[in-house]
């Protein structure tokens, strides 16, 4: 088959997913002969999920050539060092899942094995105290990672917390300046090609038709093309992740700008708190079997750390993923591809993965099955591995104080997750993988944070004498403390870095 290049792409939907896709593709294909159009309707609101992100987003922004300061100002962004999980292992517990490691490996063996040994010998310091990003976060401080790997300051990664609708707008400007055509209008009909079943065109309310060679479905939960037109099917994961509703409300900005997101476990779900420069994002993800919408709203409002700025907004969803992410000539990216609760800030990351894989496997007019299969294989793996990691939070717990927690206590886990937990509990072994967003350090953070302490450590740890080990651990803890002492406060750092938005500078000034 001679390659016949795709000449036109139509992105359906202009939320975060739509504009991220438009920006990514327009950057990748600039000065190639491909027209990109994005159709969005102002009548249809966007969900604006994922105000908190993972470090990978920096790579996305860098590829686009976006200046960090410009982007932060435009999106009211703050730095994010990790997520603080409250009340997960037990009510009253708290731990931070940082972007970065706990300590440095010794003789090729991860530090937490040594820590496990210290604990068995009456060490009382938490694993946290050996993690620079955790202590930095607890002190509301921030600094960019050092490139000198000998410095403790090199042991952190970071992401952002931002206003995702502002991020969408920011990327819209970016994409439009790179010749992406924005079309305003509501899609009423999808026309399929009778021969091959591909989507041929979409028809807008005003009767105009828009054709394209490739469609990207960023239409949100409903999956206008992937589901409503192509019937790709949905794999329901609610037996594992039963939360099915969320309520969101914005409140005043926090005085001490925390460089981390907070996720607090509740009786019927969990609540988030995301500090931005101009406001704080709050929400409650819950399962309607265990709490009513009104009670959830009341609970959320009663627990805000600052005065509310908006009325609560209700969201409905079903966790799971599309059976095929790419079907015919339609690729679903964003909520149309699947939904996993934003407990670990993966929504934007999964959009980014979808774009990256699409670029790698970008089709030509032949739309080969092999490209689609490979894309679907890669994305399934991504979603499934995130699912297992999210589920870990609910099952690595001692809580049984409500019907929801009892439900998790009685659950039969996916084999893949059960094996991981067993390997961890027996000997602190992480069943690591190469493809999937959460590295071993993340699994360690959650399991130890939720009181799953391995019964044994790696026997090779005993090669190091106990005195040496104690000395090394103490020196590491000291380096963490000193590093944190040297670091600046998060809000001051944003100002000094030139990343403060107008409103932020004014209020802080």
């Amino acid at each position, binding site marked *: 088959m001679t390659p016949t290049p795709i000449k036109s792409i139509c992105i359906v939907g202009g939320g975060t997913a739509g504009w991220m896709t438009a920006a990514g593709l327009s950057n990748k294909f600039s000065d190639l002969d491909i027209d990109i159009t994005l159709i969005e309707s102002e009548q249809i609101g966007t969900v604006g999920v994922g105000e908190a992100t993972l470090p990978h987003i920096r790579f996305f922004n860098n590829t686009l050539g976006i200046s960090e300061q410009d982007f932060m100002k435009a999106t009211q962004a703050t730095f994010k060092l990790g997520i603080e999980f409250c009340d997960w292992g037990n009510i009253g517990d708290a731990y931070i899942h940082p972007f970065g490691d706990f300590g440095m490996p010794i003789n090729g063996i991860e530090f937490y094995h040594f820590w496990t040994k210290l604990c068995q010998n009456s060490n009382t310091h938490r694993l946290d105290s050996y993690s620079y990003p955790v202590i930095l976060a607890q002190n509301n401080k921030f600094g960019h990672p050092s490139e000198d790997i000998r410095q403790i300051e090199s042991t952190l990664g970071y992401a952002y917390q931002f206003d995702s609708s502002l991020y969408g707008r920011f990327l819209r400007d970016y994409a439009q300046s790179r010749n992406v055509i924005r079309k305003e209008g509501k899609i009423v009909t999808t026309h399929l090609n009778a021969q091959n079943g591909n989507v041929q065109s979409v028809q807008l309310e005003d009767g105009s038709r828009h054709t394209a060679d490739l469609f990207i479905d960023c239409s949100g939960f409903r999956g206008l093309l992937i589901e409503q037109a192509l019937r790709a099917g949905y794999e329901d994961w609610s037996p594992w992740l039963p939360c099915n509703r969320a309520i969101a409300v914005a409140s005043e900005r926090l005085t001490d700008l925390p460089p981390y997101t907070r996720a607090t476990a509740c009786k019927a779900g969990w609540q988030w708190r995301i500090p931005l420069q101009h406001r704080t994002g709050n929400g409650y993800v819950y399962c309607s079997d265990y709490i009513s919408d009104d009670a959830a709203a009341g609970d959320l409002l009663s627990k805000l750390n600052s005065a509310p700025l908006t009325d609560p907004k209700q969201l409905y969803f079903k966790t799971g993923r599309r059976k095929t992410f790419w079907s015919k000539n339609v690729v679903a990216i964003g909520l149309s591809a699947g939904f996993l609760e934003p407990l670990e800030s993966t929504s934007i990351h999964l959009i980014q993965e979808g774009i990256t894989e699409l670029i790698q496997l970008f089709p030509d007019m032949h739309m080969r099955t092999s490209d689609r*299969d490979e894309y679907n294989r890669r994305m399934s793996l991504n979603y499934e591995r995130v699912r297992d990691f999210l589920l870990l939070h609910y099952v690595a717990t001692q809580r049984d104080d409500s019907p929801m927690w009892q439900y998790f206590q009685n659950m039969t886990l996916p084999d893949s997750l059960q094996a991981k937990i067993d390997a961890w509990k027996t000997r602190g072994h992480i069943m690591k993988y190469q493809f999937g967003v959460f590295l071993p350090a993340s699994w360690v953070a959650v399991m130890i944070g939720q009181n799953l302490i391995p019964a044994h450590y790696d026997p090779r740890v005993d090669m190091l004498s106990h005195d040496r080990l104690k000395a090394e651990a103490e020196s590491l803890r000291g380096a963490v403390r000193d590093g944190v002492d040297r670091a600046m406060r998060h809000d001051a750092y944003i100002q000094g870095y030139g990343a403060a938005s107008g409103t932020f500078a004014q209020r802080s000034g």
Partner: protein
Amino acid sequence: MTRAMDQQDAPMTRIAIIGAGLAGQICAAALRANLPSAIDIKWLDTGRDQDSDIFYGHTTPPESYGFNLAACVNEPDLVLNSDTSFSLGTQFTAWSPQNLEWVQCSHLPLPVMDSVPFHHHLARLDIDNIEPFLMPSIMARNGRFAHPPPNTDTPLSRAEYGYQIDPFTYGRVFQEAATQHGLVLTNSAIEAVCVKDGHIRSIALKNGEKLTADLFIDCTGPKASLLHALGSAYQGKRALFGASSYQAQSVLGFSCRHIHGTDYGWVSESALQGRRINMSVSAPEDKAAARAAHNGAVTTEADVMLGRRDAPWLGNCVGIGHAAAILEPISTAPIRALQRDIERLLRLIPVSADMSVERREYNRLFDDDISHMHMFNRSFFPPGETTPSLYWKQASEQPLGEKLTRKLTLFEDRGVLVTYDLEPFNEQDWTILHFGMRRTAGRYDRVADRYEKRDLERYLNTMSQAIKTLAAKIPPHHIYMQGLRKHLSNRPS
């Protein structure tokens, strides 16, 4: 607590390594160097039956350097105390009925321009030979060698190297290291393996002693004496015959192994210090032809069945190396498999007598590693070759499987490298193999079109010229080795 549970919880303190061929020697050195002295290690040599060790092949991958260091065997030891030499890869000639010719070398990641992998740019210019852009390949072809410097400015720093080895002399360096660290090698054949409830309770030795341990490591080669006693199943895939011979050589040969395809299979030459080691491989039916390649000088020969155990860890016994799987030594897969077996075992040394968690995880990882290595080896043979030669016919009739089909389809169709979790062969290994096997991408990443063809041609030309010029300045393998030996011998000890 019941007695049974008591035993399950008992700490694991005694390991017995059975077998003293290459697998046993490397395993003994690595375990003794990495495990605390509270873990007692016994080591048993059950007799001289290491002939099948020739099927570990005569080259090692770049990972051997670090692996060996962790086993307390450093490069100077190998160079001074064995006939080991350097390997930049394997040069194939007359390979397969298609008569292919290339150097399978190891390389750090190739240049990526505008996020487009290197080979897409070559595909755009219809360049079907990647070799001029691979420093180790050009050096290997010209028999040159120098250690790659850590400096990234020179093409030499992109090269990776392993060793050319004789499994018998290479293994002895590890044995020496193990002994120096206090491991005692006992000699005795096995009288009987005492098995109860799927576990080895003890081994009765011909010398009248009884060997007990918590964990038994089966390094007895293809016969897998211990695993066999436990009823382990072996999935045999292809029978092969191999023969090897030595040839004295006063001047050290080239810095790569040479494999030449023949009607009966293939023949290889590897350059060692002071001699050359030759190996021929065929289907068992063509033994005579494979033997004849050595002009009557065959020193070692072996019949093996390529394949793998269903599960190399059964009860309290783990099979390492050939006891677990036998791969054809056309690539570095056999040594990689052995190294990975040992690394995997070190990460999963049981913490108590109940080894169920370790066993399951070990077998899972083994399964991935072996199937990935088999996939790489399988890719040396075009599928469905019609030829009168048994070897080539059987090799090309092996099923591809779903994962490899995906890899081949995506590469041949569009130059995309499909990668699975933690594969032993990296993207460069695959790219170089695809080019060697004349698998070309039907289309390339359109973003490559951003470059003016003229600019791209100029860039590639400069790159290959720089490699050619530098390679000519690098000393021949034997001169470099002489200098290195002199330097190492003059070191203050």
